[in-house]
């Protein structure tokens, strides 16, 4: 009976640890990065409304405290895309992988993706200009003229 209890307890502790590692460490790191990116792209916006085309990124965005997640891309002023999807041209678009960034390089302001196990941020100068966005000094090094 005692061994059974210990086993259950151990499993619970293990699951908690896994959950903590998976969902708090990476997720929080990514959340922090997206928070920085969004605020850098929309520095003067008080009510930032965001939208994503994937559930995982939706959850990620919902976890950022000072932005509002909206149900439709038309209501958003920041859209995070993981798929090749057409959206309103005026909205600020950001992608989550390099392939999409290449495909949408005329529409999106940049992307955040993992390459060789490393986090990579990339902003496209031309598209930033189109949206009249001036990034803070700390983000300047991530601006590229082309991919």
């Amino acid at each position, binding site marked *: 009976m005692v061994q059974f209890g210990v086993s259950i307890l151990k499993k619970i502790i293990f699951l908690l640890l896994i959950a903590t590692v998976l969902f708090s460490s990476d997720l929080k790191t990514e959340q922090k990065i997206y928070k920085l990116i969004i605020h850098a792209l929309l520095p003067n916006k008080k009510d930032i409304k965001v939208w994503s085309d994937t559930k995982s990124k939706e959850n990620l965005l919902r976890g950022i405290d000072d932005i509002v997640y909206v149900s439709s891309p038309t209501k958003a002023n920041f859209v995070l895309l993981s798929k090749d999807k057409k959206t309103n041209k005026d909205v600020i678009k950001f992608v989550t992988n390099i392939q999409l960034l290449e495909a949408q390089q005329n529409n999106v302001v940049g992307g955040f993706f993992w390459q060789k*196990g*490393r986090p*990579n941020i990339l902003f496209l100068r031309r598209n930033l200009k189109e949206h009249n966005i001036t990034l803070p000094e700390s983000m300047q090094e991530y601006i590229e003229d082309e991919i």
Partner: protein
Amino acid sequence: MRHLNKLYFSIFVSIIIAIAYLFFSTSNIQMTLNKNVEEIFINGAKSFAQNISEDIKSHIKEDPFKELKNHKNLQKNLEQTLSVIVNETYKYIFVLYRDNHGNYRYILDGSKDKAHFNQRLSVNKELWDKVYNTQKAVIVNQKKLDHLWITYLHPVIFNGKTKAVVAIDFSAKLPKNICQAISPLNKIFIYIFIAIGFLVSILIYQTFISMKIKKESITDQLTNAYNRNYLRDLLQSIDISKYQIMMLDIDYFKQVNDNYGHKAGDYILSRTAKLIKNEIRENDILVRFGGEEFLIFIKKASSRSKLAYDIAQRIRKRIESHHFLYEQDTLHITVSIGISCQPEHFKTISESIKYADEMLYIAKRKGRNQVVSHIIDTKTTNLNNKKSINDVKSALEDNRIICFYQAIHDLKTNKIIKYEALVRIKEKDESITPPMMFLESIMYTNVYNDLTKTVLENVFKQIQKQHIQISVNLNFSDILDNKIFMLIIEELKQHKELSSWLIIELLEYELLEEISTIQERLKEIKSYGVKIAIDDFGSGYSNYEIFKILPIDILKIDGSLIKDIDTSLISYKIVHSISVLAKELGIKTVAEFVHSKNVLETVRTLNIDEVQGFYLAKPLPKI
């Protein structure tokens, strides 16, 4: 049992140490294994990186970026070479160059998810710059990246200048696999530590419960003092030479119970115990001995210390001055305390406790609210060669308590009509010890009670034998004492048919207290036919009130008045007045200390009934 516990404890500690040693050894093995594996792969990476660097240098003359940008085939060929090295461990192999802005960009990529030529990669610039600047290889432990373990960075140098860096990323799978391989062992340790933790928790809990039960079993719930269970253990382990023993009793406690109820009694007991605790020190031991009696072991500072006496007085005064508030009433309580200052002089601790009890008994007899302590224990004979308690005890045990009998004559008939029994100790060398040598030391003790019983038994034997009146000497305090009184009644009951021959001479030198009790008890004694005589009347605290309050049959006029009656007019007149008064009250008179013919003749003229003295008869061992 203690040795067994020590053994169990040693075994338990040894097991813990062994497990801890195994755990740390295993951890060490794991670390060494990791380190060795790491070294093997780093050496492998080093040689691959060197080969790649040499290969690039063999195909490119000066500037890898420019030349590879323009020679796509060369780029393709070199990337193919890199991709051959890629495996489960060497996950990514690529070559970056540093642009004019200090950013690192691909020139070659042998990995599966291939990047574009000149595509930027975010890297730890500080480390990469280090490779560029120092032209030496750098090994980076990728602790912050989940999927990478190590990155090996190797400079590609052209003409003494670093033009690119070869990077080999190690997959994090390998150390994870090693961890997984060893994890069953670690799991075993986790289970063992959980089991030990569980066992230790149970042990701690059981120890706590056991201590709690033990404490409850040795503590009196009402007073929070130790109880007799504790005392029993204490007596076996205590070094009594380091303590003085104090026996404390709450005076008239029965009256509190009778008048205010048992709850009030309980309240008094608990409050009194608290007051005592406040007056004693931490290393003193308070035991509820039973009822309203407390036993206190006072840790003494020196062998002749009066510490216990001082503490006892402090306790007595504190309790005397305390207002015990019970419901609407304020009660005032006093305590009597007996002390055994040198308990180590007794054969057993029980004897020294008994001695403290005897001192308490004296304190009670002296009027209560007192502290009685004999610094020089009666165990040893004092300077005047007086007998000790033990001497008297020994005489009682050896049947060496005897009575001498002094004849009392009728003045009219000159015949012996009665005897006065006088207690003596017959020493082992046949010498005789008079009462003045031993009575004082046993007064108020149980030995005195035993002596009284023996004297009464001897006297009744003589009465049975001779059929003559015999008087014995007792104190008023003996009549007041429950034990002695019960003993007298018991003796009278046993010798009912002989009781009318017994005369009890009460020594008059004590102040009369608790008159009603004395009246009641003398009445009961007299109901057996016993005569009551007042001894040594005319000296000390002689009080004519006793004629009014006591059922006196005989008045024995004090020897100090008789011995010079033939020469002192005052003595003559006093004795004359006593005689007249006694005659008026119907009380018989006896003149003691008749030591000459002149005294006898003078007494005869005073209408005295009986005479006693050396002139007529000395005390003799037989009648």
